[in-house]
């Protein structure tokens, strides 16, 4: 569906702008990402700084932090997710309308960070909800968050709207509900959503015992 660049340029000289619908659609969506206004720990302070005048997230169209999941497009998981908080985070995610995106901000939201050996800390929010962009850092600087938003914008710009290659939310029968973990006697039940999370594939062939045997 590419337009001949020469024709496009010629038309522009006469004040006629041509653009594929897909590009226009994606451009408008990526330019108004409304994040959910919620923070969990110190990363949220950096998120607030990003939105304030010095770093000015408004330059990227993402300054409208919504206080309700119903109006939000993006969930920035900013901080340590405790096991007590995890079900609430998944619930908020379920309440967000499609299309929705998730940024996992900081070491804690990625993996539990410095607290991952704690009995009370979830080892990464990607165990329960699908994450689009991970930002390392403890906490990441506002520039890093802005970079993540730009990465997400590139991802949105690349959304394919052709029939058959459309994202899941165009399928009206697709469920957007992710199972909310229950509070168990010792841990969350289940400890991870197996449908979306498993240990990285590169390493799953080798268990520790085998590596120890070899070396």
């Amino acid at each position, binding site marked *: 569906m590419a337009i001949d660049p020469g024709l496009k340029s010629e038309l522009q000289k006469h004040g006629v702008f041509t653009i594929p619908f897909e590009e226009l659609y994606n451009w408008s969506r990526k330019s108004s990402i409304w994040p959910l206004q919620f923070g969990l720990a110190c990363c949220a302070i950096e998120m607030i700084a990003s939105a304030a005048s010095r770093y000015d997230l408004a330059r990227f169209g993402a300054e409208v932090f919504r206080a309700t999941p119903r109006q939000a497009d993006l969930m920035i998981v900013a901080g340590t997710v405790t096991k007590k908080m995890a079900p609430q985070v998944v619930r908020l995610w379920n309440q967000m309308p499609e299309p929705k995106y998730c940024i996992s901000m900081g070491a804690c939201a990625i*993996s539990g960070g410095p607290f991952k050996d704690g*009995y009370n800390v979830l*080892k990464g929010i990607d165990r329960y909800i699908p994450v689009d962009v991970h930002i390392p850092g403890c906490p990441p600087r506002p520039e890093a968050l802005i970079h993540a938003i730009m990465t997400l914008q590139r991802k949105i710009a690349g959304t394919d709207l052709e029939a058959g290659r459309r994202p899941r939310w165009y399928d009206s029968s697709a469920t957007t509900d992710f199972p909310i973990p229950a*509070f168990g*006697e010792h841990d969350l039940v289940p400890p991870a959503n197996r449908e979306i999370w498993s240990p990285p594939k590169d390493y799953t062939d080798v268990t*520790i015992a085998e590596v*120890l045997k070899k*070396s």
Partner: protein
Amino acid sequence: MEAIEKIKEVLVASVQGAQIEIIASTPAAAQPALLVDRDHVAGVARFLKEDDRFKMDFCSCVTGVDYPALGVIEVVYHLYSVALRQGPVVLKVRAPRDLQECHVPSLTPVWRGCEFQEREAYDLYGVKFTGHPDLRRILMWDEFTDHPMRKDYVPPQDYEWEPTPHDATLDRAKAAGGIVPPTALEDAKKK
């Protein structure tokens, strides 16, 4: 503020039947404590609060300590007097580690500020505070059955994937049959 021996003398003379022992502190803490028996700790606390010589009107900290070797859980109260600008007086009371027997009298009726801190000690150490107005878990969820700050607490086995394991975490990952990057094992060997 008088010396700890003097405080003990006054308490023994004033609170009938109280058995009080002075626990020498480690050099780092430099704060000797008064170990009071379970039956009289409430009386001792009320006396310290109401007596004009002490006026301990502020309980700043309540915490638990687990001593598996002694078979006891210790509850520590740090008391200050805002009125007389003195303190701290450290009160300790001990209970057996066994969950059925592990109870001490609540000091919330004496200092209202103890309420949340005693709930925390109950949550993390399993100490039941008899006479507490609202003894529920405060940090962990209600369905949780363990007491994680006890030294024999076994954390859940969620070590199936450890990107940067070392020391105890590496041991746990091994025990759980978990997965780690081979480079992490090499790093651990070099140490």
